[in-house]
């Protein structure tokens, strides 16, 4: 019998409706409550769990007490096994972390959680790669790619996974923006890591056609196309973060910084996990290209999870020397929305927008729209 872990961050999303741009930290939660905010995540969790309850006789559900899952599970018709203890009405990120850790110990097959980017980070810190995870979108900030499109689809994917109908697992970005900075108007997001997420086949090609196998081939082709360009001379290649760019480093058998920026030249590593300032020093006077991929579910090229690639760095390298890589499936998943640039420099954003050639395979490209 498959075991499903359920964690609800009951205060996720509470800051959204009252304009607080997030719910991280107890002060904000209290302030939100003062402003009359109602928690939304319990309701969203119930929406997802109701779908899962179609298979309730063939799974075991483990959850945390009261509003952290017990109540939502019961409302959806489950009779869950409840572990741990919390103070009702005063949950903290620490509770989320503890709950996730204990569920891993209980050998769950899938962790379904309701929350936002902050919750995803907490889960990531305690679960890492140990257990597949799927997010029910319930927070103010949903930049991470670990969330299903809707609560309902989270339920659908969970059911498919628990019934062995969906075996593909992909690594999805856990991202979060600095809420304090966000409140003061600046968006600085960081890529915290990757969680293993059952593949959602809504926009991408279905499992039936060998999604993962075909994707591996496409990625190998993309890497080969970029590496081909490394042959001619001593041009520097700045390799941005992400699992797509990682394939280039893997093909070169170079250690990759998944969450950071590396520099490669002549197929050799020049520098690892470099900051903006280091980048500026290193590339000065060198012909350089930047290799970036689409980060997060909203299609960002710059300004999400790769702030090292600052306006200064981009200008130094030159817009013509930006290589964008992504699979066609990833582009199709954007559903026609443009790729986004948010460098923090309006002028540069404008220069970057228009049409860009995205490398989608070996000598295979898509012309795609860039906006800001």
């Amino acid at each position: 019998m498959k075991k499903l872990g359920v964690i609800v961050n009951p205060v996720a999303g509470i800051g959204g409706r009252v304009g607080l741009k997030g719910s991280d930290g107890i002060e904000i939660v209290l302030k939100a409550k003062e402003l009359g905010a109602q928690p939304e995540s319990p309701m969203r969790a119930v929406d997802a769990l109701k779908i899962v309850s179609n298979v309730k006789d063939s799974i075991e559900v483990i959850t945390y007490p009261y509003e952290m899952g017990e109540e939502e599970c019961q409302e959806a018709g489950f009779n869950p096994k409840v572990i741990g203890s919390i103070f009702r009405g005063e949950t903290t990120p620490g509770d989320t972390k503890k709950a996730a850790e204990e569920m891993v110990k209980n050998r769950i097959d899938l962790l379904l959680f309701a929350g936002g980017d902050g919750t995803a980070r907490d889960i990531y810190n305690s679960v890492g790669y140990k257990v597949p995870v799927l997010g029910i979108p319930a927070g103010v900030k949903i930049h991470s790619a670990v969330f299903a499109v809707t609560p309902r689809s989270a339920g659908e994917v969970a059911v498919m996974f628990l019934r062995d109908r969906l075996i593909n697992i992909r690594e999805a970005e856990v991202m979060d923006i600095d809420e304090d900075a966000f409140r003061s108007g600046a968006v600085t997001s960081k890529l915290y890591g990757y969680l293993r997420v059952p593949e959602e086949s809504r926009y991408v090609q279905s499992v039936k056609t060998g999604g993962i196998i075909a994707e591996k081939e496409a990625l190998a082709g993309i890497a080969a196309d970029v590496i081909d360009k490394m042959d001619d001379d001593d041009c520097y290649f700045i390799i941005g973060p992400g699992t797509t760019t990682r394939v280039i480093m893997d093909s070169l058998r170079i250690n990759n910084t998944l969450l950071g920026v590396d520099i490669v030249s002549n197929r050799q590593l020049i520098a690892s996990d470099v900051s903006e300032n280091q980048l500026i020093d290193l590339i000065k006077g060198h012909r350089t290209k930047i290799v970036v991929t689409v980060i997060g579910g909203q299609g960002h090229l710059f300004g999400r999870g790769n702030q090292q690639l600052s306006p200064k760095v981009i200008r130094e390298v030159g817009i013509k020397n930006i290589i964008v890589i992504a699979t066609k499936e990833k582009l199709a998943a954007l559903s026609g929305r443009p790729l986004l640039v948010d460098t923090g420099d309006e002028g540069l954003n404008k220069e970057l927008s228009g049409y860009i050639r995205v490398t989608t395979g070996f000598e295979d490209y898509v012309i795609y729209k860039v906006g800001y």
Partner: protein
Amino acid sequence: MGRDKNTLLRKFHQARWDEEIILEMSVPGERGILVPRAEEGIRAEIGEGVSVLGNLRRKVPPALPEVNQMRINRHYMRLSQETLGTDVNIDISQGTCTMKYSPKFQEHLAARHPGMTEIHPLQDEDTIQGILEMYYKLEQFLKEISGMDYFCFQPGGGAHGVFTNVSIVRAYHKSRGDKERTEAITTMFSHPCDAATPRTAGYKVVTLMPDENGYPDLQAMKAALSERTAGIFITNPEDTGIYNPRIDEYVKAAHDVGALCSYDQANANGMLGIARAIEAGFDLCQFNIHKTFSAPHGCMGPAMGAHGVKAELAKFLPVPRVEFDGKRYYLDYNRPESIGRVRSFYGNAPIVMRAYAWIMQHGAEGLREVAECSVLNNNYIEKKIREVPGVVVRYAKGKRRLEQVRYSWEKLKEDTGVGTEDVMRRMGDFGLQHYWTSHHPWVVPEPFTLEPCESYSKDDIDEYVAVIRQISKEAYEDPEFVKNSPYNLPVHKVLAPSIDETERIAVTWRQYKKKKGVK
């Protein structure tokens, strides 16, 4: 008995024979036929015919199945009962494929007429004048239909036809000493062979995404075009069924940078007698005879991709060309700038015969009527399908489409969790072939593509729509029921992952034995 008069649904159940693989049926020594001995004159020349093989002669006979006639006949009849072909179902499902009726008259000629079956491609031209005449006349027909100056019937399928056009584009640039052209452009909703064939020919391929109206993005195309562009390879209408009325602007933009424009008209069913490649400005085009001109679909071989070119590209056409000197038809091999042979001999003569017969039966007005009926049928079914709960249609709001529509079950999936592949499997339970979803990646989510070409009546379309409506109803009432379908077919639901696992797939008997551990 019979179809329900109100619901238009049938109580269908397909045969399930649990049939062996033919190689498992082999009984050593059992015979289907005794091969006749060669004629005396030949025997006198080469004896029993085997000794001349020398070292080429096999030491061990091939492991072919040994099965008598009646068992073979039974075997394949049973297998045929476990499929849903054009002759037994309302074949509206295969959008983009144009599954039109292939009249039995021409099928009979192709299969039985000694003028077709008893000839050999190495026969002297003088003994196949009738065949060559059909080649020549069919070329005149297709010239008129497309506006191109020359046609060639050698490629054995649509993708082969496009590849031949790619080869001509390559030869054209080479003849001009232009070596900088390394790229080809296509669109996301064109057939994937428009990307694959230039790629096979060594070109880098640039793909254009659809804009919000479903047309290939013209601005993106202008961004993609350069002096490196060898050609554009596109369809119109694309898989969405939306005709791009500004196609000439795309062609002009390509011509402005010196590229050639190749029109993939594999499925030209909505345009016969109405719009032509030449007026849109194209330099090359191709028709899939098995789509638009009613020959049966041939599965990547015994089909035909007839391709046409403008006069200045004629010298690059494959050899041999069928020519006519006013008295006699002949094969012309003396074409020094030709790209050479693209297929053995001179292509699939039985397909030429079918297309010739079909066009002769219809006449010019008839061909136009084919297009008009296709479009009318499509407009009718589109209206009906749009009314089915759970269906959405992306792009081109308020515009009519030509011969097909790419629909989406996006809403059904959101509402019920039932997706396009679930609905597709359930179709079989009503005696309808699984529909065509989409090429990959799925730009339109949960897609399905229907094409009720001119062959189908209003009643056929009504029955088809009734099935789609019924499945939608079932999905809203009991999604699990649809997800676990089919129930009335020889094979029930096959879990998707197992299809992906190459180690579980065998495409030859040898592989099968190895993987199954069969001695």
